[in-house]
């Protein structure tokens, strides 16, 4: 396609709802032929670590299993499956280097293919995008 639209997403929370929202937008955008870049920072960082298993926020944490079941019933798989799909669709995933230091996450804890960036490098990417979303 001549004019590929680009999307930048910042994910700053690591709860189930925020995690799913970011990937549902990302996977839809990628399915529409768009180029997608997701920057994971603060509590969003743990979403791109191996075996990430986000829970619903606050007291809803206890109902995470129910949410998952309901989403599966309408064909939406769990976070891990969505993340795998995102990678297959060519979504670019980034981890915030500063958050890694603060949250004690090592490069080897990250999912394969996740690139470590600082704010300047991400902003440089975002500056060339057509749409920017903040999920936090």
């Amino acid at each position, binding site marked *: *396609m001549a004019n590929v*639209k680009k999307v930048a997403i910042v994910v700053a929370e690591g709860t189930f709802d925020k995690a799913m929202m970011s990937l*549902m937008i990302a*996977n*839809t955008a990628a*399915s*529409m*032929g*768009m180029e997608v870049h997701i920057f994971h920072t603060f509590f969003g960082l743990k979403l791109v670590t191996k075996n990430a298993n986000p829970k619903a926020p606050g007291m809803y944490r206890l109902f995470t299993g129910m949410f998952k079941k309901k989403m599966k*019933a*309408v*064909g*939406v798989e769990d976070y891990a499956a969505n993340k795998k*799909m995102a990678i297959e*669709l060519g979504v670019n995933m980034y981890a915030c280097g500063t958050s890694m230091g603060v949250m004690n996450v090592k490069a080897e804890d990250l999912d394969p293919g996740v690139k470590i960036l600082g704010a300047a490098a991400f902003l440089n990417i975002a500056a060339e995008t057509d749409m920017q979303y903040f999920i936090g």
Partner: protein
Amino acid sequence: MQKDASLDAKGLMCPMPIVKLAKKIKEMQVGQVLELIADDPGAKEDVPAWCQRTQNELVETKQEGSVFYFYIKKKV
């Protein structure tokens, strides 16, 4: 409506019909027509939007009760 393939996305909700549609179209040849069956109420707007964005042609849409039938010709 003549079709070359059919994709049943009934029971699936956003974004799955679109994700599956994109995957299926990728496997098809330019000029072929895909029938997409969906009952996600959002599909009524989502499928035309996907076609517009990806420059594929929505040849025909029909609705039977709460089920939509979309006929999409692969253009690119």
